[in-house]
């Protein structure tokens, strides 16, 4: 690996890691004031949990050589013996393994026991994430011909459908559907969005694993996806509600980033505009599904990450262009690419949903998923973490 490539992937690893505290702020501002520290800590704590899991066994399950297409070889336990660019790759991929379970936390706002979250995140990053990463990037899905540049399948669909399974076991917040659950600090959410957008350049352009033309293409399409996503969501909202909103622009930017993630190195700038705009429009419509079907995906992990991830992965099967990333989609004569994408999407949806549901059930029957009604009403910051976010007085 050339020095320039190494430098870019080192920086990209730091950029992607920075996304997780960014995500914490994105989610933290969107929830109630009484739960903001719980929201922040679910993401922040995941950094530590997944670092341990990934170093010990996760990496080798995902990338440690092939074990028949289904799981890695277990040959690099504890990252032992890894050096140089292999160790760099393990570090870079660790930051993806960290943010993926953190994404799930948005669905469970305000009602999940912290011990249950720690247990769920640990088991999920041990039993679900490494397998899906292996399938899509080294194993049978990759061999089949499914493509996923930076984690549409592995990160977004995987986390989105896991969130759905988890909230179906966990149940809704008290008052869901009747009470108002207003975001308590949209400025925090917007700061978080900015950090996510910034870090996403490492996520997508870093996934080229080199400082080359593919990385440049990925950075440009990432920027376009985010910008057009914000516009798409805002246009839809402006027409329907009569006002452009801060939360709408922020949500649209993230939706656009999600959709372009699988495609960043496989499509050009014009196609990236379609990814962004469609993601903004479609995800805007998708976030209302939870009210129709009655599942309390509190901060819309399903509506943004599952729906945006499926949209991006399937659209890639149509718009991929061999002159850019070596693979043609249906529009350029290779209809089979769309079929491979479909197989990829369905496989991850089914596997991750079933596994996540089983893990959620296991956590529920062992430590219990939910806090008490009293804790939920009081707010998790005080009742679970014994601290407060906003102290404007020294009165004790």
């Amino acid at each position, binding site marked *: 690996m050339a020095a320039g490539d190494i430098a870019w992937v080192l920086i990209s690893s730091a950029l992607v890691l920075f996304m997780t505290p960014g995500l914490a702020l994105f989610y933290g501002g969107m929830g109630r004031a009484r739960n903001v520290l719980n929201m922040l800590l679910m993401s922040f704590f995941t950094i530590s949990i997944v670092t341990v899991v990934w170093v010990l066994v996760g990496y080798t399950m995902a990338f440690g050589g092939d074990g028949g297409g289904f799981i890695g070889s277990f040959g690099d336990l504890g990252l032992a013996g890894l050096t140089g660019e292999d160790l760099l790759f393990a570090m870079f991929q660790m930051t993806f393994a960290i943010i993926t379970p953190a994404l799930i936390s948005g669905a469970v706002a305000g009602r999940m026991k912290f011990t249950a979250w720690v247990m769920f995140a640990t088991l999920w990053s041990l039993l679900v994430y490494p397998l899906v990463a292996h399938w899509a990037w080294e194993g049978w899905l990759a061999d089949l011909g499914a493509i996923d540049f930076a984690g549409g399948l592995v990160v977004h669909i995987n986390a989105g459908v896991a969130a759905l399974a988890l909230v179906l076991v966990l149940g809704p917040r008290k008052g869901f559907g009747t009470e*108002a659950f*207003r975001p308590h600090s949209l400025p925090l959410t917007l700061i978080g969005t900015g950090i996510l957008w910034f870090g996403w350049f490492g996520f997508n352009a870093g996934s080229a694993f080199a400082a080359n033309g593919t990385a440049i293409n990925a950075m440009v399409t990432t920027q376009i996806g985010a910008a057009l996503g914000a516009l798409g969501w805002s246009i839809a909202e402006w027409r*329907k*509600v009569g006002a452009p*909103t801060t939360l*709408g622009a922020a949500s649209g930017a993230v939706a656009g980033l999600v959709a372009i993630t699988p495609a960043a190195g496989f499509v050009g700038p014009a196609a990236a505009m379609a990814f962004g705009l469609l993601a903004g429009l479609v995800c*805007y419509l998708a*976030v*209302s599904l939870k009210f129709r079907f009655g599942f309390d995906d509190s901060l*819309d992990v399903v509506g943004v990450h599952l729906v945006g991830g499926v949209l991006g992965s399937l659209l890639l099967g149509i718009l991929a262009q061999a002159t850019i990333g070596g693979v043609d989609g249906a529009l350029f004569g290779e209809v089979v690419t769309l079929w491979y994408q479909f197989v990829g999407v369905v496989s991850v949806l089914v596997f991750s949903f079933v596994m996540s549901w089983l893990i959620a059930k296991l956590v529920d029957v062992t430590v219990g998923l939910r806090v008490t009604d009293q804790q939920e009403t009081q707010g998790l910051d005080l009742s679970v973490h014994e601290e407060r976010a906003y102290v404007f007085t020294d009165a004790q």
Partner: protein
Amino acid sequence: MKLVIAYIKPFKLEEVKNALKDAGVSGVSVSDINGFGRQSGHTEVYRGAEYEVDFVPKTRVEVLVDDTLTTTVVDAIQSAAHTGEIGDGKIAVLAIEEAVRIRTGERGRDAV
């Protein structure tokens, strides 16, 4: 002595403060509050979901005055806080038994 408590629109605070100064008041306490009256609430929209928010932000102004100044102060607040729109607020006047200036120990009228 009277305690005059006014619930006003937040953007009227500056005008009310100036009117009170002109009326000869020597001190005012102010706090941000939420409440509802006949104005009731308003609608907020987050990710397409509309929420009825009952509590509207208001400002609470408290003035401790001598009996002789009460009418002037109430009139000053009423005219300064007035817009004619729904939600202009309310003024309440309470009788006060005793007042003490903490620094000097003065009591009654001298403390106001």
